[in-house]
Protein backbone atom coordinates (compact mmCIF):
# COMPACT_ATOMS: atom_id res chain seq x y z
CA UNK A 1 0.00 0.00 0.00
CA UNK A 2 2.85 2.35 0.90
CA UNK A 3 4.43 1.73 -2.47
CA UNK A 4 1.15 2.34 -4.30
CA UNK A 5 0.95 5.62 -2.39
CA UNK A 6 4.48 6.42 -3.56
CA UNK A 7 3.39 5.66 -7.13
CA UNK A 8 0.65 8.26 -6.82
CA UNK A 9 2.42 10.95 -4.79
CA UNK A 10 5.89 10.83 -6.24
CA UNK A 11 5.50 11.28 -10.04
CA UNK A 12 2.98 14.05 -9.40
CA UNK A 13 5.45 15.71 -7.00
CA UNK A 14 8.16 15.73 -9.67
CA UNK A 15 5.81 17.05 -12.34
CA UNK A 16 4.42 19.69 -9.95
CA UNK A 17 7.94 20.97 -9.29
CA UNK A 18 8.72 21.33 -12.98
CA UNK A 19 5.29 22.81 -13.76
CA UNK A 20 5.61 25.34 -10.93
CA UNK A 21 9.05 26.47 -12.11
CA UNK A 22 7.96 26.77 -15.73
CA UNK A 23 4.73 28.58 -14.90
CA UNK A 24 6.21 31.07 -12.45
CA UNK A 25 9.12 31.79 -14.78
CA UNK A 26 6.79 32.63 -17.64
CA UNK A 27 4.29 34.57 -15.54
CA UNK A 28 4.94 36.82 -12.60
CA UNK A 29 2.25 35.70 -10.13
CA UNK A 30 1.73 39.29 -8.98
CA UNK A 31 0.49 40.14 -12.47
CA UNK A 32 -2.23 37.50 -12.50
CA UNK A 33 -5.55 39.32 -12.29
CA UNK A 34 -8.88 37.85 -11.33
CA UNK A 35 -11.79 40.18 -12.15
CA UNK A 36 -9.39 43.08 -12.26
CA UNK A 37 -7.90 42.43 -8.83
CA UNK A 38 -4.50 40.82 -8.21
CA UNK A 39 -5.22 37.22 -7.26
CA UNK A 40 -2.36 36.94 -4.78
CA UNK A 41 -0.23 39.51 -2.99
CA UNK A 42 2.94 37.65 -2.06
CA UNK A 43 5.19 35.88 -4.52
CA UNK A 44 6.36 33.21 -2.05
CA UNK A 45 2.74 32.45 -1.27
CA UNK A 46 1.97 32.16 -4.98
CA UNK A 47 4.88 29.78 -5.59
CA UNK A 48 3.87 27.60 -2.65
CA UNK A 49 0.17 27.53 -3.41
CA UNK A 50 0.94 27.01 -7.10
CA UNK A 51 3.12 24.05 -6.28
CA UNK A 52 0.37 22.40 -4.28
CA UNK A 53 -2.27 23.09 -6.90
CA UNK A 54 -0.06 21.43 -9.51
CA UNK A 55 0.65 18.59 -7.11
CA UNK A 56 -3.04 18.01 -6.47
CA UNK A 57 -3.74 17.91 -10.19
CA UNK A 58 -0.93 15.40 -10.62
CA UNK A 59 -2.19 13.32 -7.71
CA UNK A 60 -5.65 13.21 -9.28
CA UNK A 61 -4.16 12.04 -12.57
CA UNK A 62 -1.87 9.43 -10.99
CA UNK A 63 -4.65 8.11 -8.77
CA UNK A 64 -6.92 7.69 -11.80
CA UNK A 65 -4.14 5.82 -13.58
CA UNK A 66 -3.82 3.47 -10.61
CA UNK A 67 -7.58 3.10 -10.44
CA UNK A 68 -8.00 2.24 -14.12
CA UNK A 69 -5.08 -0.16 -13.98
CA UNK A 70 -7.22 -2.84 -12.37
CA UNK A 71 -7.81 -5.59 -14.90
CA UNK A 72 -11.29 -6.87 -15.87
CA UNK A 73 -10.49 -10.03 -13.98
CA UNK A 74 -9.85 -8.13 -10.78
CA UNK A 75 -13.11 -6.19 -11.09
CA UNK A 76 -15.25 -9.24 -11.89
CA UNK A 77 -13.87 -11.40 -9.15
CA UNK A 78 -16.04 -11.89 -6.08
CA UNK A 79 -14.44 -10.24 -3.08
CA UNK A 80 -15.77 -12.93 -0.71
CA UNK A 81 -13.85 -16.14 -0.12
CA UNK A 82 -15.67 -19.19 -1.62
CA UNK A 83 -16.94 -20.50 1.73
CA UNK A 84 -18.56 -17.22 2.66
CA UNK A 85 -20.48 -16.60 -0.56
CA UNK A 86 -24.29 -16.43 -0.12
CA UNK A 87 -26.55 -19.48 -0.27
CA UNK A 88 -27.41 -20.34 -3.88
CA UNK A 89 -24.44 -18.64 -5.42
CA UNK A 90 -23.09 -20.91 -8.18
CA UNK A 91 -19.58 -20.09 -7.16
CA UNK A 92 -20.22 -20.94 -3.52
CA UNK A 93 -18.06 -23.72 -2.21
CA UNK A 94 -18.74 -24.90 1.34
CA UNK A 95 -16.59 -27.96 0.94
CA UNK A 96 -19.61 -30.36 0.79
CA UNK A 97 -19.14 -31.23 -2.90
CA UNK A 98 -15.71 -32.46 -2.36
CA UNK A 99 -14.87 -36.09 -1.44
Amino acid at each position, binding site marked *: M*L*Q*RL*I*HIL*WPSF*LVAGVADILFT*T*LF*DPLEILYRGEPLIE*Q*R*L*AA*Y*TVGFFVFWLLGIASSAMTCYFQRSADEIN*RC*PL*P*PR*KRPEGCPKRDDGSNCC
Partner: protein
Amino acid sequence: MTDENKPASAETPIEQQLYAIRQTIQTRAVHGVFANWRVALVLITQLVYYGLPWLQWENRQAVLFDLAARKFYIFGLVFWPQDFVYLTGLLILAALSLFLFTAVAGRLWCGYACPQTVYTEIFMWVESWLEGDHVARKKLDASPWNANKLKKRGLKHVAWFALALWTGFTFVGYFTPIKELAVEFVSFGLGPWEAFWIFFYAFATWGNAGFMREQVCKYMCPYARFQSVMFDSDTLTVTYDNSIGEPRGPRSKKTDYKAAGLGTCVDCNVCVQVCPTGIDIRNGLQYECIGCAACIDGCDQIMDKMGYPRGLIRYTTENVVKGKYPDSGILKHILRPRTIIYTVLLTAIASAFLYSLATRVPLRVDVVRDRVALSKETDEGMIENVYRLQLINKDDQTHRYTIQAEGINGLQVVTASREVSAAPLQTIDIPVSLIADPVDLKGRSIEVTFNIRSTDDPGIHTEVGTKFFNR
Protein backbone atom coordinates in the same frame (compact mmCIF):
# COMPACT_ATOMS: atom_id res chain seq x y z
CA MET B 1 -2.42 -11.38 6.32
CA THR B 2 -5.46 -12.97 7.85
CA ASP B 3 -6.42 -16.57 7.22
CA GLU B 4 -9.17 -15.61 4.83
CA ASN B 5 -6.78 -13.80 2.54
CA LYS B 6 -4.33 -16.62 2.49
CA PRO B 7 -4.42 -18.49 -0.77
CA ALA B 8 -6.49 -21.61 -0.12
CA SER B 9 -5.05 -24.71 -1.68
CA ALA B 10 -6.05 -25.19 -5.32
CA GLU B 11 -7.81 -21.81 -5.24
CA THR B 12 -6.59 -18.67 -6.92
CA PRO B 13 -5.59 -16.19 -4.25
CA ILE B 14 -8.35 -13.72 -3.48
CA GLU B 15 -6.03 -10.83 -3.08
CA GLN B 16 -2.44 -10.90 -4.18
CA GLN B 17 0.20 -9.00 -2.34
CA LEU B 18 1.23 -6.38 -4.88
CA TYR B 19 4.64 -5.71 -3.42
CA ALA B 20 7.11 -7.46 -1.22
CA ILE B 21 6.97 -6.37 2.42
CA ARG B 22 10.02 -4.29 3.12
CA GLN B 23 12.46 -5.59 5.71
CA THR B 24 14.49 -2.93 7.48
CA ILE B 25 18.07 -3.21 6.32
CA GLN B 26 20.71 -2.78 9.01
CA THR B 27 23.97 -2.60 7.11
CA ARG B 28 27.28 -3.64 8.53
CA ALA B 29 29.81 -0.78 8.57
CA VAL B 30 32.63 -1.15 6.10
CA HIS B 31 36.09 0.37 5.72
CA GLY B 32 38.24 0.62 2.66
CA VAL B 33 39.21 2.69 -0.34
CA PHE B 34 35.70 3.26 -1.67
CA ALA B 35 34.21 3.93 1.78
CA ASN B 36 36.88 6.63 2.18
CA TRP B 37 35.93 8.12 -1.17
CA ARG B 38 32.33 8.29 -0.07
CA VAL B 39 33.23 9.97 3.23
CA ALA B 40 35.34 12.49 1.31
CA LEU B 41 32.50 13.24 -1.11
CA VAL B 42 29.94 13.52 1.68
CA LEU B 43 32.18 16.09 3.39
CA ILE B 44 32.90 18.06 0.21
CA THR B 45 29.31 18.20 -1.05
CA GLN B 46 27.92 19.12 2.34
CA LEU B 47 30.58 21.74 2.98
CA VAL B 48 29.49 23.38 -0.27
CA TYR B 49 25.79 22.90 0.44
CA TYR B 50 25.78 24.21 4.02
CA GLY B 51 28.49 26.83 3.45
CA LEU B 52 27.63 28.43 0.10
CA PRO B 53 24.62 30.51 1.23
CA TRP B 54 26.77 32.21 3.88
CA LEU B 55 29.33 33.42 1.35
CA GLN B 56 29.22 37.16 0.66
CA TRP B 57 29.92 38.98 -2.60
CA GLU B 58 30.07 42.78 -2.73
CA ASN B 59 27.80 43.22 0.30
CA ARG B 60 25.21 40.71 -0.76
CA GLN B 61 24.76 36.96 -0.60
CA ALA B 62 27.01 35.40 -3.26
CA VAL B 63 24.55 32.72 -4.32
CA LEU B 64 20.92 33.66 -3.87
CA PHE B 65 17.93 32.60 -5.92
CA ASP B 66 15.79 35.46 -4.73
CA LEU B 67 12.34 34.14 -5.55
CA ALA B 68 10.44 36.99 -3.93
CA ALA B 69 12.27 39.52 -6.13
CA ARG B 70 12.48 37.21 -9.18
CA LYS B 71 16.26 37.65 -9.49
CA PHE B 72 18.98 35.03 -9.28
CA TYR B 73 22.41 36.12 -8.02
CA ILE B 74 25.40 33.90 -8.70
CA PHE B 75 28.55 35.73 -7.62
CA GLY B 76 29.00 38.63 -10.07
CA LEU B 77 26.09 37.61 -12.28
CA VAL B 78 22.44 38.54 -11.97
CA PHE B 79 19.82 36.51 -13.80
CA TRP B 80 16.24 37.48 -14.62
CA PRO B 81 13.29 35.30 -15.58
CA GLN B 82 14.12 36.24 -19.19
CA ASP B 83 17.46 34.42 -18.76
CA PHE B 84 15.66 31.11 -18.35
CA VAL B 85 17.63 29.78 -21.32
CA TYR B 86 20.74 29.61 -19.12
CA LEU B 87 18.98 27.34 -16.66
CA THR B 88 17.93 25.13 -19.56
CA GLY B 89 21.52 25.08 -20.79
CA LEU B 90 22.76 24.16 -17.35
CA LEU B 91 20.28 21.29 -17.09
CA ILE B 92 21.33 19.96 -20.52
CA LEU B 93 24.98 20.13 -19.42
CA ALA B 94 24.18 18.29 -16.19
CA ALA B 95 22.26 15.58 -18.05
CA LEU B 96 25.05 15.07 -20.59
CA SER B 97 27.70 14.85 -17.85
CA LEU B 98 25.56 12.25 -16.11
CA PHE B 99 25.32 10.24 -19.36
CA LEU B 100 29.08 10.44 -19.84
CA PHE B 101 29.96 9.40 -16.30
CA THR B 102 27.44 6.58 -16.42
CA ALA B 103 28.77 5.24 -19.72
CA VAL B 104 32.33 5.24 -18.36
CA ALA B 105 31.91 4.03 -14.81
CA GLY B 106 28.28 3.22 -14.04
CA ARG B 107 26.36 4.79 -11.21
CA LEU B 108 29.12 6.95 -9.75
CA TRP B 109 26.54 9.62 -9.00
CA CYS B 110 24.34 7.24 -7.00
CA GLY B 111 27.18 5.70 -5.06
CA TYR B 112 29.01 8.81 -3.99
CA ALA B 113 27.24 12.11 -4.63
CA CYS B 114 23.45 11.71 -4.77
CA PRO B 115 21.81 13.57 -1.85
CA GLN B 116 19.87 10.41 -1.05
CA THR B 117 23.16 8.51 -0.56
CA VAL B 118 24.87 11.40 1.19
CA TYR B 119 22.12 12.03 3.75
CA THR B 120 21.53 8.33 4.31
CA GLU B 121 25.26 8.02 5.00
CA ILE B 122 25.21 10.92 7.48
CA PHE B 123 22.07 9.60 9.17
CA MET B 124 23.69 6.17 9.46
CA TRP B 125 26.75 7.71 11.11
CA VAL B 126 24.45 9.20 13.74
CA GLU B 127 22.62 5.90 14.05
CA SER B 128 25.72 3.78 14.61
CA TRP B 129 27.10 6.41 17.00
CA LEU B 130 23.97 6.37 19.17
CA GLU B 131 22.67 2.83 18.71
CA GLY B 132 25.82 0.80 18.07
CA ASP B 133 26.81 -1.46 15.18
CA HIS B 134 24.47 -3.47 12.94
CA VAL B 135 24.21 -6.35 15.43
CA ALA B 136 23.28 -4.00 18.29
CA ARG B 137 20.76 -2.21 16.05
CA LYS B 138 19.08 -5.45 15.01
CA LYS B 139 18.85 -6.44 18.65
CA LEU B 140 17.33 -3.05 19.47
CA ASP B 141 14.84 -3.45 16.60
CA ALA B 142 13.71 -6.78 18.02
CA SER B 143 13.63 -5.75 21.66
CA PRO B 144 10.37 -4.63 23.26
CA TRP B 145 9.88 -0.97 24.06
CA ASN B 146 11.62 -0.18 27.35
CA ALA B 147 13.37 2.79 28.90
CA ASN B 148 16.65 1.97 27.16
CA LYS B 149 15.10 1.64 23.70
CA LEU B 150 13.04 4.77 24.25
CA LYS B 151 16.15 6.72 25.24
CA LYS B 152 18.25 5.49 22.32
CA ARG B 153 15.53 5.94 19.74
CA GLY B 154 14.53 9.32 21.15
CA LEU B 155 18.09 10.61 21.08
CA LYS B 156 18.53 9.38 17.52
CA HIS B 157 15.43 11.14 16.32
CA VAL B 158 16.34 14.36 18.08
CA ALA B 159 19.78 14.28 16.43
CA TRP B 160 18.27 13.34 13.06
CA PHE B 161 15.67 16.06 13.24
CA ALA B 162 18.23 18.69 14.24
CA LEU B 163 20.29 17.72 11.18
CA ALA B 164 17.22 17.71 8.97
CA LEU B 165 16.13 21.10 10.27
CA TRP B 166 19.53 22.57 9.53
CA THR B 167 19.32 21.08 6.05
CA GLY B 168 15.87 22.56 5.50
CA PHE B 169 16.98 25.94 6.82
CA THR B 170 19.97 25.94 4.44
CA PHE B 171 17.72 24.96 1.55
CA VAL B 172 15.41 27.92 2.13
CA GLY B 173 18.54 30.06 2.64
CA TYR B 174 19.27 29.63 -1.07
CA PHE B 175 15.97 31.28 -1.94
CA THR B 176 15.61 34.00 0.63
CA PRO B 177 18.51 35.95 2.24
CA ILE B 178 19.98 33.56 4.78
CA LYS B 179 21.24 36.11 7.31
CA GLU B 180 17.81 37.65 7.81
CA LEU B 181 16.35 34.17 7.78
CA ALA B 182 18.71 33.13 10.58
CA VAL B 183 17.68 36.11 12.69
CA GLU B 184 13.99 35.35 12.06
CA PHE B 185 14.59 31.68 12.80
CA VAL B 186 16.19 32.16 16.22
CA SER B 187 13.68 34.84 17.21
CA PHE B 188 10.70 32.69 16.07
CA GLY B 189 9.79 35.43 13.61
CA LEU B 190 9.70 33.36 10.41
CA GLY B 191 7.19 34.23 7.73
CA PRO B 192 4.60 31.49 7.20
CA TRP B 193 5.91 30.46 3.76
CA GLU B 194 9.56 30.29 4.79
CA ALA B 195 8.62 28.33 7.92
CA PHE B 196 6.52 25.94 5.87
CA TRP B 197 9.32 25.16 3.40
CA ILE B 198 11.98 24.78 6.11
CA PHE B 199 9.86 22.21 7.91
CA PHE B 200 8.69 20.56 4.70
CA TYR B 201 12.26 20.07 3.50
CA ALA B 202 13.40 18.97 6.97
CA PHE B 203 10.58 16.45 7.12
CA ALA B 204 11.47 15.11 3.66
CA THR B 205 15.15 14.80 4.63
CA TRP B 206 14.27 13.04 7.87
CA GLY B 207 11.90 10.65 6.11
CA ASN B 208 14.10 9.93 3.10
CA ALA B 209 17.41 9.52 4.91
CA GLY B 210 16.03 8.01 8.09
CA PHE B 211 13.26 5.70 6.90
CA MET B 212 12.84 5.42 3.14
CA ARG B 213 16.53 4.97 2.37
CA GLU B 214 17.03 2.32 -0.34
CA GLN B 215 13.31 2.42 -1.21
CA VAL B 216 13.87 5.86 -2.74
CA CYS B 217 16.42 4.32 -5.11
CA LYS B 218 14.33 1.25 -5.80
CA TYR B 219 10.88 2.73 -6.25
CA MET B 220 11.19 6.49 -6.67
CA CYS B 221 14.32 7.18 -8.67
CA PRO B 222 13.77 7.48 -12.43
CA TYR B 223 17.51 7.30 -13.14
CA ALA B 224 17.82 3.80 -11.64
CA ARG B 225 15.26 2.57 -14.14
CA PHE B 226 16.87 3.79 -17.32
CA GLN B 227 20.52 3.45 -16.35
CA SER B 228 20.84 0.22 -18.32
CA VAL B 229 20.37 2.03 -21.64
CA MET B 230 23.49 4.06 -20.83
CA PHE B 231 25.53 0.99 -19.95
CA ASP B 232 27.39 -1.05 -22.52
CA SER B 233 29.80 -3.97 -22.33
CA ASP B 234 32.73 -1.65 -21.67
CA THR B 235 31.12 0.21 -18.75
CA LEU B 236 32.83 -0.17 -15.40
CA THR B 237 30.40 -1.70 -12.91
CA VAL B 238 30.65 -3.33 -9.52
CA THR B 239 31.01 -6.95 -10.56
CA TYR B 240 31.40 -10.29 -8.85
CA ASP B 241 33.82 -12.34 -10.92
CA ASN B 242 32.21 -15.78 -11.24
CA SER B 243 35.25 -17.24 -12.93
CA ILE B 244 37.46 -16.85 -9.86
CA GLY B 245 34.82 -16.99 -7.13
CA GLU B 246 32.93 -20.16 -8.02
CA PRO B 247 32.33 -22.74 -6.80
CA ARG B 248 31.89 -20.89 -3.54
CA GLY B 249 31.90 -22.48 -0.13
CA PRO B 250 33.28 -22.31 3.39
CA ARG B 251 36.74 -23.69 4.05
CA SER B 252 39.51 -23.40 6.60
CA LYS B 253 42.24 -20.88 5.95
CA LYS B 254 44.78 -23.68 5.64
CA THR B 255 42.93 -25.57 2.94
CA ASP B 256 44.41 -25.43 -0.54
CA TYR B 257 41.18 -24.30 -2.14
CA LYS B 258 42.37 -24.99 -5.67
CA ALA B 259 43.13 -28.59 -4.79
CA ALA B 260 39.73 -28.82 -3.08
CA GLY B 261 38.08 -27.59 -6.30
CA LEU B 262 36.78 -24.33 -4.78
CA GLY B 263 36.83 -20.75 -5.98
CA THR B 264 37.94 -17.84 -3.79
CA CYS B 265 34.42 -16.99 -2.55
CA VAL B 266 34.20 -18.24 1.04
CA ASP B 267 30.44 -17.57 1.10
CA CYS B 268 30.82 -15.36 4.19
CA ASN B 269 27.89 -13.13 3.08
CA VAL B 270 29.75 -9.94 4.03
CA CYS B 271 28.91 -8.48 0.59
CA VAL B 272 25.21 -8.94 1.39
CA GLN B 273 25.52 -7.60 4.95
CA VAL B 274 27.16 -4.34 3.85
CA CYS B 275 24.82 -3.69 0.92
CA PRO B 276 22.62 -0.64 1.55
CA THR B 277 19.96 -1.97 -0.85
CA GLY B 278 20.12 -5.50 0.52
CA ILE B 279 20.99 -7.34 -2.69
CA ASP B 280 23.45 -10.12 -3.38
CA ILE B 281 25.91 -8.83 -5.97
CA ARG B 282 26.90 -12.42 -6.74
CA ASN B 283 23.62 -12.78 -8.65
CA GLY B 284 24.94 -10.34 -11.24
CA LEU B 285 24.17 -6.73 -12.13
CA GLN B 286 20.80 -5.62 -10.74
CA TYR B 287 18.96 -2.35 -11.04
CA GLU B 288 18.90 -2.02 -7.25
CA CYS B 289 22.72 -1.78 -7.19
CA ILE B 290 23.61 1.87 -6.60
CA GLY B 291 27.28 1.27 -7.34
CA CYS B 292 28.44 2.27 -3.85
CA ALA B 293 31.17 -0.41 -3.87
CA ALA B 294 30.61 -1.24 -0.19
CA CYS B 295 30.71 -4.92 -1.21
CA ILE B 296 34.11 -4.40 -2.85
CA ASP B 297 35.53 -2.99 0.39
CA GLY B 298 33.86 -5.74 2.43
CA CYS B 299 35.07 -8.54 0.16
CA ASP B 300 38.61 -7.17 -0.03
CA GLN B 301 38.83 -7.25 3.78
CA ILE B 302 37.88 -10.93 3.79
CA MET B 303 40.27 -11.75 0.93
CA ASP B 304 43.08 -10.07 2.91
CA LYS B 305 42.22 -12.16 5.97
CA MET B 306 42.23 -15.34 3.91
CA GLY B 307 45.44 -14.39 2.14
CA TYR B 308 43.68 -14.52 -1.27
CA PRO B 309 44.18 -11.94 -4.02
CA ARG B 310 41.80 -8.94 -3.84
CA GLY B 311 39.31 -8.19 -6.56
CA LEU B 312 36.82 -11.04 -6.40
CA ILE B 313 34.28 -8.20 -6.42
CA ARG B 314 35.71 -5.20 -8.25
CA TYR B 315 35.01 -2.40 -10.70
CA THR B 316 35.33 -4.08 -14.04
CA THR B 317 33.52 -4.42 -17.36
CA GLU B 318 31.31 -7.10 -18.84
CA ASN B 319 33.86 -7.72 -21.59
CA VAL B 320 36.65 -8.34 -19.07
CA VAL B 321 34.54 -10.90 -17.23
CA LYS B 322 33.79 -12.56 -20.59
CA GLY B 323 37.53 -12.76 -21.18
CA LYS B 324 37.61 -10.43 -24.19
CA TYR B 325 40.44 -8.38 -22.72
CA PRO B 326 42.26 -8.23 -19.35
CA ASP B 327 41.62 -5.58 -16.64
CA SER B 328 44.63 -3.66 -17.95
CA GLY B 329 42.70 -3.06 -21.19
CA ILE B 330 39.84 -1.19 -19.50
CA LEU B 331 41.52 2.20 -19.87
CA LYS B 332 41.92 1.75 -23.62
CA HIS B 333 38.25 0.88 -23.98
CA ILE B 334 37.09 4.09 -22.32
CA LEU B 335 37.48 5.75 -25.72
CA ARG B 336 34.64 4.42 -27.81
CA PRO B 337 31.98 6.02 -30.04
CA ARG B 338 29.48 6.48 -27.19
CA THR B 339 31.86 8.29 -24.86
CA ILE B 340 33.42 10.31 -27.69
CA ILE B 341 30.00 11.55 -28.85
CA TYR B 342 29.02 12.52 -25.31
CA THR B 343 32.33 14.33 -24.80
CA VAL B 344 32.08 16.23 -28.09
CA LEU B 345 28.48 17.27 -27.34
CA LEU B 346 29.39 18.26 -23.80
CA THR B 347 32.36 20.34 -24.92
CA ALA B 348 30.35 22.06 -27.67
CA ILE B 349 27.42 22.98 -25.43
CA ALA B 350 29.70 24.01 -22.55
CA SER B 351 31.67 26.31 -24.87
CA ALA B 352 28.51 27.85 -26.31
CA PHE B 353 27.19 28.32 -22.77
CA LEU B 354 30.35 30.02 -21.53
CA TYR B 355 30.64 32.18 -24.66
CA SER B 356 27.07 33.35 -24.32
CA LEU B 357 27.59 34.04 -20.62
CA ALA B 358 30.80 35.99 -21.25
CA THR B 359 29.29 38.15 -23.99
CA ARG B 360 26.00 38.64 -22.14
CA VAL B 361 24.87 42.29 -22.22
CA PRO B 362 23.46 43.44 -18.87
CA LEU B 363 20.70 45.39 -20.56
CA ARG B 364 17.31 44.35 -21.79
CA VAL B 365 14.82 46.46 -23.68
CA ASP B 366 11.27 45.55 -24.71
CA VAL B 367 9.17 47.72 -26.99
CA VAL B 368 5.47 48.12 -26.37
CA ARG B 369 3.43 50.01 -28.98
CA ASP B 370 0.94 52.63 -27.93
CA ARG B 371 -2.36 50.80 -28.12
CA VAL B 372 -4.65 53.78 -28.64
CA ALA B 373 -3.50 54.92 -32.08
CA LEU B 374 -1.28 53.09 -34.51
CA SER B 375 -0.10 56.35 -35.99
CA LYS B 376 -1.14 59.99 -36.09
CA GLU B 377 -0.39 63.05 -38.14
CA THR B 378 1.28 66.02 -36.49
CA ASP B 379 0.39 69.67 -37.16
CA GLU B 380 3.41 69.85 -39.47
CA GLY B 381 2.05 67.00 -41.60
CA MET B 382 4.55 64.44 -40.29
CA ILE B 383 3.66 60.91 -39.20
CA GLU B 384 4.17 60.06 -35.54
CA ASN B 385 4.19 56.63 -33.81
CA VAL B 386 4.25 56.36 -30.03
CA TYR B 387 6.02 53.58 -28.14
CA ARG B 388 6.91 52.69 -24.60
CA LEU B 389 10.41 51.25 -24.03
CA GLN B 390 10.74 49.01 -21.02
CA LEU B 391 14.41 49.09 -20.07
CA ILE B 392 15.98 46.79 -17.47
CA ASN B 393 19.47 47.56 -16.22
CA LYS B 394 20.66 44.06 -15.36
CA ASP B 395 24.04 45.29 -14.15
CA ASP B 396 24.98 46.03 -10.56
CA GLN B 397 26.02 49.60 -11.46
CA THR B 398 24.02 52.64 -12.50
CA HIS B 399 24.18 53.40 -16.22
CA ARG B 400 23.04 56.23 -18.51
CA TYR B 401 21.64 55.38 -21.90
CA THR B 402 20.88 57.14 -25.19
CA ILE B 403 18.12 56.01 -27.51
CA GLN B 404 18.39 56.19 -31.29
CA ALA B 405 16.34 54.70 -34.08
CA GLU B 406 16.96 53.81 -37.71
CA GLY B 407 15.15 52.26 -40.64
CA ILE B 408 13.63 55.38 -42.27
CA ASN B 409 15.38 58.38 -43.80
CA GLY B 410 15.41 61.37 -41.45
CA LEU B 411 13.67 59.48 -38.65
CA GLN B 412 13.45 61.62 -35.50
CA VAL B 413 13.43 60.24 -31.97
CA VAL B 414 11.58 62.31 -29.40
CA THR B 415 12.09 61.54 -25.70
CA ALA B 416 11.58 63.60 -22.56
CA SER B 417 15.31 63.89 -22.00
CA ARG B 418 18.40 63.21 -24.12
CA GLU B 419 19.66 60.51 -21.75
CA VAL B 420 17.97 58.19 -19.30
CA SER B 421 19.52 56.78 -16.17
CA ALA B 422 18.76 53.44 -14.55
CA ALA B 423 19.94 52.29 -11.14
CA PRO B 424 21.28 48.74 -10.67
CA LEU B 425 18.56 46.17 -11.39
CA GLN B 426 16.04 48.94 -12.03
CA THR B 427 13.30 48.67 -14.62
CA ILE B 428 12.24 51.96 -16.20
CA ASP B 429 9.51 52.89 -18.66
CA ILE B 430 10.45 55.42 -21.33
CA PRO B 431 7.80 56.95 -23.58
CA VAL B 432 9.28 57.56 -27.03
CA SER B 433 7.81 58.87 -30.22
CA LEU B 434 9.22 58.39 -33.68
CA ILE B 435 8.47 61.04 -36.30
CA ALA B 436 8.99 60.59 -40.03
CA ASP B 437 8.19 62.54 -43.18
CA PRO B 438 5.41 60.81 -45.20
CA VAL B 439 7.48 61.17 -48.38
CA ASP B 440 10.10 58.84 -46.89
CA LEU B 441 7.55 56.19 -46.02
CA LYS B 442 7.26 53.33 -48.48
CA GLY B 443 4.45 50.94 -47.66
CA ARG B 444 1.92 50.56 -44.89
CA SER B 445 4.34 49.39 -42.21
CA ILE B 446 8.12 49.79 -42.07
CA GLU B 447 10.61 47.87 -39.96
CA VAL B 448 12.52 50.17 -37.60
CA THR B 449 15.20 49.44 -35.02
CA PHE B 450 15.83 51.13 -31.69
CA ASN B 451 19.50 51.34 -30.68
CA ILE B 452 20.05 51.73 -26.96
CA ARG B 453 23.62 52.40 -25.86
CA SER B 454 25.17 53.11 -22.53
CA THR B 455 27.09 56.40 -22.60
CA ASP B 456 29.46 55.28 -19.84
CA ASP B 457 30.24 51.76 -21.06
CA PRO B 458 30.54 51.21 -24.82
CA GLY B 459 30.25 47.45 -24.31
CA ILE B 460 26.63 47.80 -23.20
CA HIS B 461 24.27 48.24 -26.10
CA THR B 462 21.33 46.44 -27.58
CA GLU B 463 19.02 46.64 -30.57
CA VAL B 464 15.35 45.95 -30.62
CA GLY B 465 13.13 45.88 -33.68
CA THR B 466 9.55 47.06 -34.08
CA LYS B 467 7.23 48.41 -36.77
CA PHE B 468 6.41 51.95 -37.82
CA PHE B 469 2.93 52.36 -39.25
CA ASN B 470 2.02 54.81 -41.97
CA ARG B 471 -1.41 56.46 -41.98
